[in-house]
């Protein structure tokens, strides 16, 4: 496709990059370029304005608590309006781990403090306290007739409401809250998930799904062509085996 390009806004690449989030950006780039699709990524830090019209996909990764606090403030004050507008315009959003939590209405910390979120997704997250079990481990999620694999590491429990649907259902692992079997969230073109690992490289079907969702806003019925994913599929299958084997032992 001539002149076609995926334009990505990477929110807080310096502050929110802790769990190998670089792999997600590398993956988007690689899978676009393999199909001759251009790839542009722009990092937006604290205080930077988000221009909703200029992007097809907005990505935000995970962070430590200290950094999450700074980001939460900026999201509400500087970026929540344009984010809201972007979602209305069907811009795709991919939010991982800490970034996922911040897309909700609020995050209540282990100490009971409520950090307001961007309110892009009708959901909230509660950390039940420093003594509560942290959800750590390999995770497999049933999604769209196939699986998504990764690693989760979160203290907060996320509860969806309204029109927000879980991204998938937990096969092995904890998921959003360890109770309802749901993992992640979908609303319009917004995808949220606790999975890193990195998420996208060994989940090529999900990666393509996100890219297609992002490009269809400007190119109706757009479909990505097949590429050689042999190593990707092998890594995916090995991760599924590892996660399910461990969960039986657990």
């Amino acid at each position, binding site marked *: 496709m001539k002149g076609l390009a995926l334009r990505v806004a990477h929110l807080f690449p310096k502050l929110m990059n*802790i769990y190998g989030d670089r792999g997600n950006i590398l993956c988007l780039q690689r899978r676009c370029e393999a199909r001759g699709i251009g790839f542009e990524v722009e990092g937006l830090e604290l205080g930077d304005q988000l221009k909703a019209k200029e992007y097809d996909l907005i990505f935000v990764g995970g962070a430590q608590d200290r950094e999450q606090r700074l980001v939460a403030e900026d999201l509400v004050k500087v970026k929540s309006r344009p984010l809201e507008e972007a979602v209305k315009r069907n811009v795709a959003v991919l939010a991982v781990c800490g970034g996922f939590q911040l897309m909700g209405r609020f995050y209540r910390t282990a100490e009971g403090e409520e950090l307001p979120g961007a309110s892009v997704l009708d959901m909230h997250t509660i950390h039940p306290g420093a003594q509560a079990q942290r959800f750590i481990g390999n995770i497999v999620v049933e999604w769209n007739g196939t699986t998504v694999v990764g690693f989760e590491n979160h203290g907060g429990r996320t509860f969806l409401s309204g029109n927000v649907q879980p991204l998938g259902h937990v096969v092995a692992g904890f998921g959003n809250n360890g109770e309802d079997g749901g993992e992640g969230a979908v609303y319009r073109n917004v995808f949220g998930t606790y999975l890193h690992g990195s998420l996208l490289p060994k989940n090529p079907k999900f990666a393509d799904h996100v890219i297609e969702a992002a490009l269809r806003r400007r190119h109706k019925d757009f479909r990505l062509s097949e590429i050689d994913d042999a190593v990707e599929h092998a890594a995916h299958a090995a991760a599924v085996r590892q996660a399910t084997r461990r969960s039986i032992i657990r």
Partner: protein
Amino acid sequence: MIQRTAAVAAGKATAAVSRRFRLGGGTALPGLVAERIDPDVIRELSAQLSEGSVIVTGTNGKTTTARLLRGIAKEAGLRTIANRAGSNMMRGIAAALVDAAGWSGDIASAQKRLGIFEVDEATLPLVADAVRPRGVLFTNLFRDQLDRYGEVETVAAVWRAAVPGLPPEATVVLNVDDPSVAALAAVAQGRILTYGMKDTSSGEGKLEHAADARWCTVCGNELEYSAVIYGHLGHWRCPKCGNTRAEPDVFCGQFQAEVNGSRLTLKLPGGLVEASLPLTGLYNAYNALAAAAAAAALGFGRPAVQRGLNAATAGFGRQERMRVGGRDVQIMLAKNPAGLNQVLRTIAANGSNSDLAVFLNDNIADGRDVSWIWDVDFELLEGKTRSVTVSGLRAWDMALRLKYAGIDGQGASPHVEPEPARALKRALRATPEGSTLYVIPTYTAMLEVRDQLARWAGRGAFWEAE
């Protein structure tokens, strides 16, 4: 006393049984048994050491730094007690002390004895409380095993809380190039000795992707670097509040890389030391600098520092070399992004036709989350490999990462062989005779492949016949 005698005896018996039945090196279990019987066993035995104890903690370089410090102490005429590499929780310290004690329950010859303990970052407060160290060396703080510790900031907070409680006679030895280590100076109660790298010519110039602590510990602003050595270590300052790297007491004024090591000019309180370190890589120069600083804090002379560093040998799996079937095998342990980036730089500097075997496990001691490999700059080796073999429990994750980095060994995908012994044979076959095979394992994989290679070392190329 009776309790301690029983604890030591039970610990020693456990060690003997463990060795007899080859249940492992007996590096932790004897300590665990002894601690169960006498919870004060570490406190009581370490108090007998005439020269006291020193603790080495931090994410990277603990084992090698403690090893270098042992060499220096030996040159200074002391005998040392040290825990084994990797056994760096309470039980590992207890096991080392029990091993040194006689069946009577006392350290057999406590005169001129110094304890040198490498201690897990999060376990530091417990160990410091038990051994009452004369010195505590903080090397650096990088992202490492987030699934175990939670977050880098969690460990930093543990340290900030522990330092004011250290014995007042303990010298706190701090790396001023690491902002979160340097920040401990503000909470230290006793004597402080600082060290840092003055020669920044071999540094990276800019922050690498995995850089962590680039935020001011005082005001939270982003730090500015006039020089980056590696990771987030460097010459930093906060443009907002003026918090800045202090000039160190002990520093490396010149670092010169050589094929099998490096030449260092170290400035110690009494004068200069010119050392010829037989370990390669800037990160090992850092370890030598840290060991020299700790030696200065303990009052060792410059000749001991020089002789100790010159005589250094590689630790368990840390640039350890073996000769297997006519190939030089070098084992380079990889635990986290900053450490592995240093390993990759060292390999890249040594030639453009490298043979690699990479082993990625996700056992608890490796960190169960393998995301960290995406923070590593494998791209450093792009176009510089001749053969690449990938193995371990998460071999396919590593293969995928290497595919992304364009590291494929002569145009093909990396060869994946999850079974470690078969992978080693394949990698050795792919390495021409007389060349070096770089074996890069995570911690538990290192234990496995090192053992295998040691059994093969010195024998002919028996795998060729298979």
